């Protein structure tokens, strides 16, 4: 090996290192600015909502002097910039403040409600992708056929029917009438004394506890709301799958695959979908992020103690610490998912891999 080659190799390694460094730096900047933006906007929102935050704590019937005192105690008498400064300072130290509504530290609350939402969203997305992708593929392959139209209608209903409506209907049918699934809530009260959450993801916890009765019950509870959310994302995923697949199926390499004598199944699933998977990852990640925001309506109908409900409830009570905490979480989820889908994208698409 010549020294020349060595040199170029070293240079290439150097270049790659600097490229990675640059990518990391820009990522950090992006994350930092996004967070700051999120914080600022949320804080601003907290100021413009015409709700007196003190009311949430002391109630409507509290005497005037208690209201005033509480206002001061909570620092609402300070100028806004000072409040913001104090808040950001707290956040930087990992302290998101205390929720006045639940009296818990916001972080503790979120540790409780977020796994609930995340578990639901995860199962929902799995269902959505598991059905949405094949449906989308079917629609693309049979473009213009009856099957295509049916998939379109299925998707459209998912889009246009309010989820709380569908939710109640599903409860009525599958829970009340047929008794196939369990009702609202995450777990039966029977398990209140025997089941101890560890991670907050109940399905996982049941597995960790080797509590199969609980697992069955948890599964029976989650399946209905998750299917509902899954249907929701199915609508979107199938639609996008269809259009990505159509795009891939018109590519020249598909003709080449046919020329090789491959079966249609192999061409569709092995080649076209494999390529369509690249942009699909982003779509699924986005829809997952959407579900992670928490659906207030689903959570209300299914009495699911999740993030969406938490944030909405906090917002309605001007419990800004909680709202800010929730926003940060959702922002983080968004950023993380973005990053993750980016990585996955790179993994799936060799063209974007750094070599």
């Amino acid at each position, binding site marked *: 090996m010549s020294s020349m080659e060595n040199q170029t190799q070293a240079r290439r390694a150097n270049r790659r290192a600097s490229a990675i460094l640059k990518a990391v730096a820009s990522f950090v900047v992006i994350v930092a600015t996004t967070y700051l933006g999120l914080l600022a906007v949320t804080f601003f929102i907290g100021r413009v909502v015409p709700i007196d935050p003190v009311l949430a704590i002391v109630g409507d019937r509290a005497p005037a002097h208690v209201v005033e005192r509480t206002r001061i105690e909570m620092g609402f008498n300070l100028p806004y910039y000072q409040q913001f400064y104090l808040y950001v300072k707290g956040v930087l130290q990992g302290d998101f403040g205390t929720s006045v509504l639940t009296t818990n530290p916001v972080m503790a609350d979120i540790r409780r409600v977020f796994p609930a939402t995340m578990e639901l969203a995860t199962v929902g997305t799995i269902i959505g992708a598991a059905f949405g992708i094949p449906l989308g593929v079917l629609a693309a392959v049979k473009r213009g056929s009856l099957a295509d139209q049916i998939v379109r209608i299925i998707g459209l209903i998912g889009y246009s029917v309010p989820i709380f409506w569908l939710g109640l209907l599903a409860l009525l049918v599958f829970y009340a009438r047929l008794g196939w699934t369990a009702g609202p809530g995450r777990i039966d009260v029977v398990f209140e004394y025997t089941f101890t959450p560890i991670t907050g993801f109940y399905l996982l916890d049941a597995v960790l506890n080797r509590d199969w009765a609980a697992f069955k019950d948890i599964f029976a509870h989650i399946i209905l709301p998750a299917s509902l959310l899954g249907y929701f994302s199915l609508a979107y995923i199938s639609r996008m799958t269809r259009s990505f697949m159509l795009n891939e199926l018109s590519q*020249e390499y598909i003709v080449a695959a046919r020329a*090789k004598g491959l079966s249609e199944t192999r061409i569709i699933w*092995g080649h076209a979908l494999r*390529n369509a998977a690249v942009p699909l990852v982003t779509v699924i990640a986005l829809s997952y992020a959407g579900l992670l925001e928490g659906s207030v309506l689903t959570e209300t109908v299914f009495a699911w103690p999740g993030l969406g409900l938490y944030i909405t409830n906090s917002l309605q009570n001007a419990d800004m610490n909680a709202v800010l905490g929730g926003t940060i979480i959702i922002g983080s989820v968004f950023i993380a998912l973005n990053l993750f889908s980016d990585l996955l994208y790179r993994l799936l698409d*060799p*063209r974007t891999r750094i070599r």
Partner: protein
Amino acid sequence: MSTLLHVEDLRVSFPTRTGVVEAVRGVSFALGQERLGIVGESGSGKSQTGRAIMGLTPQQAEIKAKRLEFSGIDLLKASQAERRALRGSRIAMILQDPKYSLDPVMTIGRQIVETLRTHEKVGKSEARQRALDMLAAVQIRDPKRVYDLYPHEVSGGMGQRAMIAMMLIAGPELLIADEPTSALDVTVQLDILRILDRLVIDRGMGLVFISHDLRLVSTFCDRVIVMYAGKIVEELKASELSQAKHPYTQGLLNCMPKIGESRHPLPVLDRQPEWLL
């Protein structure tokens, strides 16, 4: 020399909103173990002829022929499965642009192995070995490295070689090469042609070579078919191309600027309506 392929009065038409487009209008030829060139300008139906033989025409197209027979098999009557079994193993086709005709997310090696394992029951390691051999056969210098590369990581010439390897690995008796070199540099072009030439000679394969480059076809092929607007206007020996009778063929030959020739302006084709008939 036995005849591999019989094509008689092949017609390919596409229904479109504005009416039926007849891409191929009655093409007939027979092919043995030889190099047959098909030339003609863009849109003259060269590719559609090739694809019709392969059975790769889009679904909505209508294919008619008095006879379309490959070594005794009536392709028109054959079922989808039968044709699929033929494709890749007995008849293969090289597509024009390696950039677009290789699956971008699959390594070159896997794409080659895929063809092989579709048609033959071979073990993984054997398939790999044969793919490597094939890559070597198409003059790829470092087959082991290229085997694991993705299409975007190789040059156009290399990609085209991989494409050829992929199509030849199952040992087809007939190869249709649809403008296999027009996306490549002139220097690389010749390498590819040399490989194809070898294969025809060594394996006794039939080759349909589709191109718009008359000069190339005349030096490379045994016989040449000249197409215009979906029809064959002339069929002649490659070596006799310069004595072509049809004014279209003559025009095509003439209008190319050549080194060391000074014709200003260049002669242009004067298309006659009766050529269409």
